Structure formats: C-alpha cells, structure tokens
C-alpha cells in the first residue's frame, strides 16, 4: 500500500477508504499490513474446509500449503501473537486486498477493519467496535443502515443452564451457527426415542449408570473378543466414553418435547435491545433458568452503545442471529443497506474470544473486531 506513489491500480483504495482507515488510526488503532501470502493451515482450521474452495492455494518447495489471504482477521491475529505485545491490550486497523474465488465479483477486493485484543471491559469494547463500524456508513454517505445484532453468549448460557446430556449440549452449540442443522437437531432431540438402535441397545442399557472405568473395560474387552484393533487417532477410551454418553441419551429420550418448545421460545425472542432484554428476563423468570451473567453483559453493552450516541431503538436484535462462523463467542453484528438488502452486509464482526487460543496462544486473550466490504459500500454510496 504505497498510497500515492504509483499510478493507482483497479484495487487502489479511494479517498473515502483512506479517510476511513485514517479515522481508525486517530481512534488509537495502529495501522498494520500483514503479509499477503499466508500459511493456509490456520484458515482451513478455523474457518473450516468449506473455505478451501474459495481460497487461492499454492505449495512451497517444502510442500507447505500457502494461500493468498482470504481475510485479514487471522493474519492480524497471528502477527499480534508473534509480537512482544502478545497478551497485552492492543488495537489494530488495516486496509488491503483479500482474495477469494467468487462468481459474482473480482477475486481480489479491498477490506478495511479493526481487531481489538486483550481488553477485559467486554461491554465497552463491544460497543466501541459497533460505533467504529458505523463510522463507515458516515464516510460513505449511507444515512440509516440496518443494524442487526446477536449474542452467541446468550445461547451458550441457555444451553449451559438446561438439563441436557453433554452430547446434546455439544451438538446444539456447534449447530447454532448452521441454522438448518439446528432445526434437525431439535427434531432429533424430540424423537430420539424412536431412533434407538435395537442391535446395540442391550449393550447401551448394560452401560447406562455404570461407572466409566467399568464401561471402558467392557468396551476394550468387546473389541478384543471381536479381534478388532483400534486404528487412527481415536482411542478405545474415547469410544467407551461416547458409548456411555449414548447410554445417557437413551435414558433421557422421553424428556425433551417441552425442552424443544423452550429452546424455540428462546430463539423467537427479537426486537430492539431493550425490548429483547425485558423478554429475556421474563423468559428466565418463567423457566427458572439462570441467564443472569449473560443478560447483565447484554444490558451493560446496550448502555455503552447508547453512551456512544448510537440510536439503540434502531438496532434489531435477535437471539437466533449468529454469523455462521464457529469462532464467534459473544456479541455479533452486521450492517446492511436498508435499500439494498440483497447486496449483503457491508460491515460484519463480533467477539471471538477463543480465536487466539486456537491460533496457539497459551493464555486466553479476548478479541473483538470487524471487517468492512468496501466494494459493497462503493456500489451503495454512488447510488445515493
């Protein structure tokens, strides 16, 4: 990004893009320029195999897989982790190209954005990130964007508070980001009794209620009697553990119809943040579930948003809103052009407190940020 030196190419940032990133620098976020060529592993690992078909991949002479960066969150996070400041509170902004196979646009396109690491004041940091995201609409002359927000932490709190087998909790959390799977899960949860398998129900029944050690010994014996050796990375112990879980699920299979209704009632809660908070408090009181910590954070965040001058009444919150990426852990948001909802979000982000751990940090480091899709803003701005 040698800004003014050479003739600008097709992807050179325009004046508004540079003004926007300059405002982020003034807000205290240090401008960084991560390498364009990145190891592919972290992207595949964190975003899932689905991103592979959109990535530009290559292999170096040592056989390592490299890619042109498909986003900047992971490169900025990796550079921060490799720096002496890793673990300390630090904020960064960027403006540069990302690369993805797309059928509806050029593969190289500009993004700007912010990553904020290590801040312990979650509610204030979340609100600040939303406010900075909204600055993009000002710079590009978009008067009243749709502000859609969600909170993955609320769903996690609900699941934690429910009386459900660990296997179901694990599944529901994982599938929260994949809405069609979640509906399937709820179906399966309700009718799981009819899916029990007669051929090993006997073993499961025998295992139900037995202690893990005995179960482990039984499964090991069963395998050796059958002459089967364990291959691959899954140990006999893990197989025994899951057998136990299945046994527990079998015992619980009569319960869940009202559980399903309860989860669906929760997922139907939506509105502006104040209305939603009231509805969630009522929900918690009616059901006797303790969602206090997550709700306190939610309400405190709304307070900080109002303090930053955001018109809270215009925000549309939904408990069912997630960003479709596994690494979000809390607040999530998207900004859309109300006049062109089909164009997709032009700012998107949220909190991903586990990302840095999954990138190798020995200690948890909270993180929150967003990316701005410049081309969508340019298309929208010029139409104004």
């Amino acid at each position, binding site marked *: 990004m040698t800004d003014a030196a050479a003739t600008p190419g097709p992807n050179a940032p325009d004046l508004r893009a540079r003004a926007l990133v300059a405002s982020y620098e003034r807000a205290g976020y240090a401008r960084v320029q991560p390498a364009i060529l990145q190891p592919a592993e972290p992207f*595949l*690992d964190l975003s*899932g*195999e*689905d991103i*592979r*078909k959109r990535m530009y991949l290559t292999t170096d002479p040592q056989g390592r897989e490299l890619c042109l960066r498909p986003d900047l969150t992971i490169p900025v996070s990796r550079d921060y982790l490799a720096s002496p400041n890793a673990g300390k509170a630090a904020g960064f902004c960027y403006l540069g190209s990302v690369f993805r196979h797309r059928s509806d646009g050029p593969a190289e396109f500009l993004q700007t954005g912010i990553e904020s690491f290590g801040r312990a004041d979650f509610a204030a940091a979340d609100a600040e990130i939303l406010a900075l995201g909204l600055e993009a609409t000002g710079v590009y002359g978009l008067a009243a964007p749709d502000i859609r927000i969600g909170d993955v932490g609320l769903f996690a709190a609900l699941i934690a508070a429910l009386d459900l087998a660990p*296997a179901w909790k*694990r*599944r529901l959390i*994982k*599938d929260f980001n*994949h809405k*069609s*799977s979640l509906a*399937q899960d709820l179906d*399966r949860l309700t009718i799981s009794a009819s899916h029990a*398998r007669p051929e*090993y129900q006997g073993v499961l029944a025998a295992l139900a209620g037995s202690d893990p050690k005995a179960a482990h010994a039984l*499964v090991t014996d*069963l*395998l050796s009697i059958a002459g*089967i*050796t*364990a*291959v*691959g*990375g*899954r140990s*006999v112990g*893990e*197989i025994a553990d*899951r*057998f136990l879980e*299945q046994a527990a699920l079998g015992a619980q299979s009569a319960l869940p119809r009202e559980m399903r209704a309860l989860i669906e009632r929760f997922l139907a809660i939506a509105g502006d943040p104040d209305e939603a908070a009231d509805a969630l408090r009522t929900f918690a009181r009616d059901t006797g579930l303790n969602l206090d910590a997550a709700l306190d954070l939610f309400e405190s965040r709304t307070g900080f948003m109002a303090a930053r001058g955001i018109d809270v009444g215009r925000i549309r919150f939904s408990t069912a809103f997630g960003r479709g990426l*596994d690494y979000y852990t809390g607040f999530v948001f998207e900004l859309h052009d109300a006049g062109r909802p089909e164009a997709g979000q032009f700012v998107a982000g949220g909190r991903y407190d586990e990302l840095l751990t999954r990138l190798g940090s020995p200690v948890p480091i909270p993180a929150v940020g967003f990316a701005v899709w410049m081309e969508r803003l340019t298309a929208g701005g010029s139409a104004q």
Partner: protein
Amino acid sequence: MNGVFVIAVPAKGRLQQNAEAFFARAGLELVQPRGARDYRGAIVDLPGVEVAYLSAAEITQLLAQGTVHFGITGEDLVREMIPDADSKVILIDGLGFGHANVVVAVPQAWIDVHSMADLDDVATAFRLKHDRKMRVATKYVNLTRDFFSGHGITDYRIVESAGATEGAPAAGTAELIVDITSSGATLAANGLKVVEDGIILRSQANLVAARTAKWDAAEHAIARIVLDRIAAQTRARAFREVRTRFAGCNDALLAEARERFGVAAPFGGPTSSGMLTLHCPPARVHALATFLREKGAAAVTVSDIDYVFTRDNPLYAKLEAGLGG
C-alpha cells in the same frame, strides 16, 4: 482437433477393454491405424471422428474444457473434478461397467459410529478432546466437502491422498477416509467399515458430452449417428424378441401382457392370423412364454436382438435438451 469430432476413450486396462467392447456392440469399431501404442484412433466407417486415448482424469478435464465432444469417464471423476458439473457436461448414459461407490469409511473399532450423525458428534468431541480436527484422507476433496457440509459436519480436515488411501488410518495420517470401493473387501482388510448413510455416490462409467465443445451442424450430425447406434444397441439389450401365432391372440391379450410383463409391441397388435412380435424385458421372458401357451399358443420363440432402431432417439434427445439449456 480442429473441425474433427473427438471421442475420448480410456487408454488403459479394463476400462479401455470395456469401452471398446461397448462401442463394438453398438457397431462402432474403434481402430488404431498406427498400432496399439498410438494414442489417436478412428471409427471404421465414420470419417470425421477422431478417437483420443487418454486417462480417465484427462478425459474429464477435456470434457469440462470442451476440447472433446464425447468422452467415457466415471461419474465420480465428473462430480469431483468439475465444479457445477451439470453446467459443463451432460451425462448421456450409464454404461453398465466401472461400477464403484464413493463412501465414507471409519475404523471398525468405532463401534459407536453407525451414521453420519454419529460421525458429526464424534468430530466435535474429537476437536474438543484433542484440540485439533479429525482428519479425512481422500482424493475426492470436493465430493467429501459437499457431503460433509450437507450433513452439518464442520470439525474435520481433509488430507489429500494420492493412493492407498485405505491405509491412512492404520498409518496414523488420518482418522477416517473417503474412497472408492466396489466390494468393500479392501476396506475390511484395512480394518475399516462403511458408515451406513455414508454412500456419497454410486458411480459407473458414463458416456459424457461436453456442453462447451464446438457444436455446429456437422457435429450434431455425427453425434446423431453415434447415439443412434448406441441407443439401438442399448434398447436391444434391454429386451428379448418373443414371437408367436395363434387364433386367440387379440388386442385384449396384448393389453394384459403389457400390464403384466411390461412388453412392447414394436410392430403393432396381432395380425388377422394372430401373428404377434413382442419385446420383453429378459427377466420376464419365461413368465410371458408360460402365459402365451396358457392362452393357446402352440409355439413361442424367443431370441436376442442385435439392434432396435426407432424413430425417436432418447439419447440424442437428451443431448439436444442439454445443449439447448
């Protein structure tokens, strides 16, 4: 390959033999005028056609690019190698050989895994326990990704495998595999089993047409001749010819035979003397012969058919529809 209609045929082994036998049955004799080592050939009485002998993977690529008009390749390769395959190629017909299933296989020791839903659960548990994702060894990267995505499975990584994929779990380079199998014997020998709803694709060799090849009048004319012969042969193989003649043979009897045995009467109903020619699926021939004798036939003859040429050509119609769309 300018101005020539190119048919790509597998260059090696049983697939080549099967493909040549298939064309020969359809009256399309492939010849290699410069000997078996030559990778260019022709069809005996069809000038303007060039036969290119290539690997199945190359054939698939050239079909996607439109460099050849027709090719014989496995549906597994078409679905794996060509993104949005139906927009690039037309699968004209399954050829009845090269059968193989692309399946998800896990270690037999995973006695808690029967379904893809089990596998989804195990994948998430594996990541939480080991702090890394379960690895799937395969050469079918795209098929695997789409199939796993369809089952909501996200906690896995693909390890590309060029060969001997079934050995990957034992070698410790992957937890499970996606691979091709015809009998399952190789999987079993490697301590693996197929997940019940883990059959990604039931594949066989297909006659495939390239949408993006040059399709002018000359190419259409050649395609029509080739597909006419193939369709005539395909139809002939699907039926036996059954002939009889007896007084009680009438339209009501024909209607009953149609209903009960799925027969066709290619030359219309019985003549005034009760002469009738039927086309009958091979599996129903004996039942039909019994039926006809019960109704009064003194003799029923059954014979193989070499070709059935009809006015309509379903294979050519499929090509036309595909190219038009």
